[in-house]
């Protein structure tokens, strides 16, 4: 039974890592097509990609939209979670449902709705409209994570702070936020990831300035090329580097 388990893990992990290995391997391809046989290794595609202005602009755009929209979503979600966790408001079940609802709707539909609405209002597609869309999809996430982390432990600390004379703003910044740091960081990090990687909303809601996934999509239209492998691998490797960094600094469980 033991052996069977390890065989199964091996098989599944092979399946899971196959496309990634192919992606990274053929980013170092020396010839024109990212398919076997492997000629190389060569860094020429990486050089090409890093010198591609359109691509680099798209990358910066993605970063901007991700960092800003995630921050907005975090703020909205944090205050909403605070409001609903503190006191039993009439209709709080309805409000909670409303805030979480966008998570169950296809991003395509959200994008379509926003595109339609912005068209009617005369707003052209841009990074701003994309940002709005990303906030819509990330508020439910931030709200859900933060609402779940607001427990009695933290509520009691807030009560103690008020008892000692702290005003509401002080309680929020000196007690609540620090206590929720892991949840806040997790929610922000996840929101940045979702926004950074998001395609369909960005595709429909941008025109001239695009995000990276949209730019990569255009690259795909012109056929298979190791350049696509290169930019894909670059993003992947940087992402997991950041992930491991965070894992070993911020998210590490303290050894009690």
């Amino acid at each position, binding site marked *: *039974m*033991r052996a069977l*388990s390890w065989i*199964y*893990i091996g098989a*599944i992990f092979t*399946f*899971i*890592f196959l*496309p*990634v290995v*192919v*992606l990274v391997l*053929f980013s170092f391809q020396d010839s024109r097509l990212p*398919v*076997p046989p492997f000629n190389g290794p060569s860094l020429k595609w990486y050089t090409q990609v890093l010198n591609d202005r359109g691509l680099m602009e798209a990358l910066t755009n993605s970063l901007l939209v991700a960092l800003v929209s995630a921050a907005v979503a975090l*703020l*909205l*979600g944090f*205050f*909403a979670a*605070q*409001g*609903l966790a503190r006191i039993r*408001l009439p209709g709080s079940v309805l*409000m909670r449902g*409303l*805030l979480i*609802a*966008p998570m169950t*709707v*296809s*991003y*395509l*539909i*959200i994008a*379509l*709705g*926003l595109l*339609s609405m912005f068209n009617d209002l005369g707003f052209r597609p841009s990074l701003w409209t994309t940002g709005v869309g990303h*906030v*819509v999809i990330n508020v439910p996430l931030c*709200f859900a994570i933060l609402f779940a982390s607001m427990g009695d432990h933290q509520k009691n600390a807030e009560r103690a702070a008020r008892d000692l004379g702290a005003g509401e703003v002080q309680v929020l910044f000196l007690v609540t936020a620090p206590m929720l740091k892991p949840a806040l960081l997790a929610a922000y990090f996840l929101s940045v*990831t979702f926004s950074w*990687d998001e*395609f*369909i909303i960005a595709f*429909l809601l941008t025109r001239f300035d695009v995000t990276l*996934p949209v730019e*990569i*999509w255009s690259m*795909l239209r012109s056929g*298979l090329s190791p350049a696509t492998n290169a930019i*894909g691998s670059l*993003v*992947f490797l940087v*992402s*997991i580097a950041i*992930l491991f960094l965070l*894992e070993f600094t911020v998210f590490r469980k303290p050894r009690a």
Partner: protein
Amino acid sequence: MSIETTDKRRAFGFVAPALLWTCAFFILPFAAMILLSLAHLEGRTVVQGYDFGNYIKIFTEPSLLKGIRVSLEITLVVTVISVVLAWPLAWIIATRVPPRYQRLAIMLAVLPFWTSYVVRSYAWALVLGQNGVLMQGLIGIGILDAPIQIMATRAATVIGFVHFFVMLLTLTIYSNLIQLSPNYARAAADLGANGWNTFRLVILPLTLPGIMTGAFLTFVLCIGDYITPQILGGNNELTMPQLIMLQLGRRGDFPMASALSVVLMALVTVAYALSARWLKMERV
């Protein structure tokens, strides 16, 4: 004003911004979309009627009806395969891997998540192509004589989807499993149950809510995805998201695209209604 009223007002003030944003940029567009679905396109202009013309078309025109069938078939197959493949992996990591390495194992299992979704589907196109890694590999070791067509077929779409959802489900099922007290399995064994009975009568029922939640999530994400079918699926069969984008792109037919979207939402709602009873379980 009593303290309680001030508190209530302040709390409401805290919730208001998020609610306003959701209403303005989610509810309102969605309501507008429903309204739009009742209009129709004449030439290049949208004429607002209040008829179900688009909906009738969806359920009578073969190409559109086929889209619904294709979406449902693919999504159901993907959901079932992904759950069946992910559960054992999650279980093995939760029980057979030493606790110190479990976090690492899970992180490894979901590492490919961090490739962009578009790039991930593209990578599968590379693997499954006629002269891709898989074909050349199979020919190389002699299983095949000539490349067979996987790209641009339903199989490719399913493989691409299953790859993503196996990772997602492994994560969600694993999180569910480790919250289960080890004493349940011990108690069952203590009372005479062998491995199979313990799994069938105790572990499976207790993890079912977690599995159903994951399956529902898979259903929703899969049926609404445009990217994977578009990159891997070819043009013979179109899923609903592809149909929606087609209506938008080629003809600018917002009303029809809206109607298709509403139908998609309806399917998701039906799925929710069917799985709702598994999504709750009292924990003792």
